[in-house]
C-alpha cells in the first residue's frame, strides 16, 4: 500500500524527475508527458560542459588518472625517503630521539590540503549536484543515474578510480544516454576507469607475448561482469567456457601507465602484446583473430542479444515503475529495445508514453541521491554550494557517491530503501536540512509548491501543526509524498 496519489505532475517530478523546486509545479501541470519530453529535446542536455565556467576545475579522465598516478608515485617516493632518513638517523644518533616540539594551539599541525584525488572527486560531486539542482524536471539526470548505476564503478577500488569516477560518468555515460545501447556499452568497456575497476589491465592472454615472457594469465572479472551485469544477465544461458573465452577476447584492453610506454599516461590503449592470439568461440560463434576488433564484435553482438534487451527492460521498468514491474511494461520496453536497435532515446520516450508509468501506484522510494537532490531543489539550494554535506548525507544513507557495494551497483528495491536504519537516516537528514535553513517562508506554502494539490490531508495537517518552521520543513521532507515515487 501507500500513496494512492495519482497526480500526474507529481508523478512527472518524483517518479521521473528529481522533485519540484518552488514554482516548478505548474510547469508540468497541463501536459506532464510533454514537460518530460521537452527535456529530451534539448541538445547536449545530459552533458557536463567544460565551456561552463563553473566546471573549470574538472579534468578529462586521462588527466585525472595521470594526476592520480603521479601523486601516488610521489607519495611512494616520500615514504621511501622518510624510511631511509629514519634508518640513517637511527644509525648516527644511537637510540635517543630528538625531543618533539610539544604541540600548542599556535603551532598545532595544519590539516594538510586534501589530496589531488579528493579534490577531483569533490569537484565532480559538485558538478553532479549542480546538474541535479538546476535541471528542469530532472528526468535526463535520472536516466544518467540509471545508466551510471548499471555501469557502475567504485571509488573504493583505488585512488585512481576516486579521482576519475566522475570523469568516467561524464565521458562514458552522459554522451550516450540517448544513443544506441551498443555505443554506450563500448564506450564504457573501453574506458580506463572501468578497465581498472574490473581488473582488466592485469588480465593477460596466456599465449600472448607478455603472457609467455612473464608467465601471467587471465583475469575473468571484466568478462564475467559484462555478461552477468552489463548485458545478458545472470542465468541467461552462457557458460563458464563463454566467460573464459570472452576474457581471452578482452585481453589487451588496458590503459597506458605512468611512464607512458604504451601511450599518453591514463589513456585507453590496446596492448597487442598482451592480447591472446587466435580465433575464439563465444556463445557458439567463432570470432576470428583481429586485435581489439575481436572484442568490439562481441560487444556489438551482446548489445543486440534478446537476453540483453529483456535484462535492460526489466531494470528500467523496475527503476522507474515498481519493484515488480507490470509485465506489459517490460514486454513493451523489450520490443522497443529490439526493434529500435537499442535506441536509448526511444526507450526513454516509451517510458514516458506507457500508461503503466502513470497508473502504477507510487510504491517505490526515492533513491538516496534523488532524496538529497530533491531536498536541495525544494529548498532552493545554491547550485554551487559546497558539496560536502550532500556527500556526507549520501554516506549516512548508505549510498556514498560512486561507491556502490559491488559491481552490481546500488540496490534498486524499495525493501532496501525503506529499512529501519534507512528511515532513521532520512529522519536525521530531514532534521539537518531543516535546521540549516534560516530564511524559511510559510512551510504550508512550500509544501503545496513541492507536493502539489493532491498532497494528503494528514500530511498538510502534520506540517501545519508542527511546532516550529524547522519541524514543519523536516516533516515535509519525511512526508510519504516526498519519499515515495
Amino acid at each position, binding site marked *: 500500500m*501507500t500513496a494512492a496519489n495519482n497526480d500526474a505532475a507529481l508523478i512527472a517530478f518524483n517518479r521521473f524527475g528529481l522533485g519540484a523546486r518552488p514554482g516548478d509545479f505548474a510547469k508540468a501541470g497541463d501536459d506532464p508527458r510533454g514537460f518530460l519530453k521537452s527535456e529530451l529535446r534539448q541538445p547536449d542536455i545530459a552533458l557536463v560542459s567544460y565551456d561552463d565556467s563553473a566546471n573549470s576545475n574538472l579534468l578529462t579522465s586521462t588527466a585525472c588518472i595521470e594526476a592520480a598516478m603521479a601523486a601516488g608515485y610521489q607519495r611512494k617516493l616520500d615514504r621511501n625517503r622518510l624510511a631511509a632518513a629514519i634508518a640513517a638517523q637511527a644509525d648516527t644518533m644511537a637510540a635517543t630521539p630528538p625531543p618533539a616540539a610539544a604541540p600548542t594551539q599556535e603551532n598545532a599541525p595544519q590539516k594538510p590540503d586534501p589530496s589531488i584525488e579528493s579534490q577531483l572527486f569533490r569537484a565532480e560531486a559538485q558538478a553532479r549536484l549542480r546538474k541535479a539542482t538546476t535541471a528542469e524536471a530532472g528526468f535526463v539526470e535520472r536516466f544518467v543515474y540509471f545508466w551510471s548505476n548499471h555501469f557502475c564503478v567504485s571509488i573504493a577500488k583505488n585512488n585512481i578510480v576516486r579521482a576519475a569516477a566522475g570523469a568516467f560518468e561524464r565521458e562514458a555515460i552522459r554522451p550516450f544516454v540517448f544513443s544506441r545501447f551498443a555505443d554506450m556499452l563500448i564506450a564504457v568497456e573501453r574506458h580506463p576507469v572501468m578497465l581498472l575497476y574490473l581488473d582488466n589491465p592485469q588480465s593477460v592472454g596466456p599465449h600472448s607475448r607478455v603472457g609467455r615472457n612473464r608467465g601471467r594469465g587471465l583475469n575473468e572479472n571484466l568478462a564475467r561482469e559484462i555478461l552477468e551485469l552489463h548485458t545478458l544477465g545472470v542465468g541467461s544461458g552462457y557458460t563458464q567456457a563463454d566467460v573464459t573465452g570472452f576474457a581471452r577476447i578482452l585481453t589487451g584492453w588496458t590503459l597506458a601507465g605512468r611512464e607512458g610506454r604504451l601511450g599518453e599516461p591514463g589513456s585507453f590503449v590496446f596492448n597487442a602484446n598482451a592480447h591472446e592470439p587466435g580465433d575464439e568461440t563465444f556463445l557458439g560463434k567463432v570470432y576470428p583473430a583481429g586485435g581489439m576488433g575481436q572484442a568490439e564484435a562481441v560487444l556489438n553482438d551482446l548489445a543486440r542479444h534478446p537476453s540483453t534487451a529483456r535484462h535492460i527492460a526489466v531494470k528500467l521498468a523496475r527503476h522507474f515503475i515498481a519493484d515488480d514491474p507490470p509485465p506489459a511494461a517490460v514486454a513493451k520496453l523489450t520490443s522497443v529495445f529490439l526493434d529500435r536497435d537499442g535506441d536509448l532515446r526511444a526507450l526513454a520516450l516509451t517510458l514516458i508514453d506507457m500508461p503503466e508509468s502513470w497508473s502504477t501506484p507510487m510504491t517505490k522510494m526515492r533513491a538516496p541521491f534523488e532524496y538529497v537532490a530533491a531536498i536541495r531543489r525544494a529548498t532552493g539550494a545554491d547550485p554551487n554550494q559546497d558539496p560536502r554535506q550532500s556527500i556526507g548525507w549520501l554516506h549516512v544513507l548508505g549510498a556514498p557517491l560512486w561507491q556502490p557495494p559491488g559491481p552490481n551497483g546500488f540496490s534498486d528495491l524499495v525493501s532496501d530503501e525503506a529499512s529501519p*536504519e534507512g*528511515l532513521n537516516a532520512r529522519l536525521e537528514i530531514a532534521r539537518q536540512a531543516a535546521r*540549516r535553513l534560516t530564511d524559511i517562508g510559510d512551510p504550508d506554502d512550500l509544501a503545496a509548491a513541492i507536493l502539489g494539490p493532491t498532497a494528503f490531508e494528514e500530511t498538510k495537517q502534520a506540517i501545519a*501543526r508542527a*511546532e*516550529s*518552521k524547522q519541524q514543519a520543513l523536516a516533516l515535509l521532507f519525511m512526508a510519504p509524498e516526498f519519499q515515495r515515487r
Partner: protein
Amino acid sequence: MKRSCAGPLLSRRATLLAGGALFAWAHMPRFAYAAAGRDPRLIVIILRGALDGLATVGPIGDPDYAALHGKLALSLSGPHPALPLDSFFALNPAMPNFARLYGAKQAAVVHAAATGYRDRSHFDGQDVLESGYPGPGHVATGWLNRALASLPAGERIARQNGLAVGFTTPLVIRGAAPILGWAPASSQEPDDDLGSRVLDLYRHRDPALAQALEEGMTAEKMATDDGVNGAMMKPKANFGGARGMALAARGAARLIAQDDGPRVAALEFDGWDTHVAEGGATGRLATLLAGLDDAFVEFEQGLGAHWKDTAIVAVTEFGRTVHINGTIGTDHGTGTVVLLAGGAIKGGRVIADWPGLKPSQLYEARDLNPTVDVRSVLKGLLADHLGLSSATLADQIFPDSSGVKPLRDLLV
C-alpha cells in the same frame, strides 16, 4: 552573521587575554548600572510549541480552574502536590529549583501574558514573538539583536558578541549585530518529537514506512541508552528535549560567565506543543518543565558571581486552551506565563491582573484572556537591565508599540 562554534571564540579570547584586557578595563562605561558596578547578562529562552501556562503555574485559587483544566490541573493535594507560590498560584512540582529561586526572591512569574498576536499559528506566533513586530511577516531581524545593535558602540555589552545556542540562530537574535553560535555536541541526538510526528503520519498514510521507522527509532534509542560507559546507563527521559535543555544551558553559562564572554544570549527549547497526553504534575509537560528547571540551575551554578547581574526570561508564542481536549492534551490558545529568573530579578512575585476563568472571562470562550503584553515585560527588562530608552524600545526594538508601556520594577 553567525560564526562557527568554539574555535573563533577561543582564538578571539586568546587575543584579548594577550593584548586587550587592559583596554577593556580602561574603557569608561557610560551607563548607570555600570557605574553601580553591574555588568548585566540577559538570557532569552524561546519555548517553541506554545507552553501551557495553566499547567505550569496553576491558578489554584480560581474556583473554575480544577474543573476546566481537568486531569492537567495542578493541586496542592494528591500524590504530586504543586508548589505554592502565594495564596492563589502554585508551581508545577517538576520545577523545585524555580520554586527555590522564587523563595529566594530570584524568580518571578508574569501570568495571563501574550504578545499582540491573536491567531493560533505556531510559525506566525513565533515570528511575532521573536521579531518584535506587531504582526507576522517580519523575519529578517529579531528584537534582541536590534537591542544589541542599538547600544552605543564601544559599550561593554555591545562590544561582546551575542550568543546563539543551537544549530540554527533563533530569529530573536538574528540581525546586524554579530552573533556567536554554539551547540552542545549532544544536540546532534534527536531532541524533539519529529520522529513521533512522522511516525504518526506514516501510521495514517504509509504503514510500511511506519513499521520500518518504528523499528529504526527503537534501535536508535537502545543504542543511545546502552551507551559506552556507565554514566550513560542511567535511564533517559522519554522526551529527549529535557536533558538537552540542561546541556545547552550549561554550555551557554560557561561562555557567558567569561569576563569577555557574550552578555546577551538566546536559546530555543522545542517540544511544548502538547496536544496529546500532556500530563499535568507528571508526564510529558512535567518532563519538559523539569528540563527547563534544570536549565535554570545550570545558569545559576555556571554563572557564579555573575548570577547576581543576570536576568533570564523564558517566553513562548502563545498559551493553550483552558479546556482539555479529547486526547488529554490542550490545543492552541492565547494567554500564558512568562518566567523570569536570575539574581537581578526582583523575584518572589507572581505578577498578574487575573482575568478569571468564567466562560465570559475567557478569550473567545476558550483561552486564558491576556491582560499583560509580553512586549511590556521584555521592554521593562531591556530598559532597566540594558538601559535602552523608551523611545528606542517603541520604534526600533518593538516597532509601533508606543501603546505598550514597559513593565518597570522587574529588577532589583
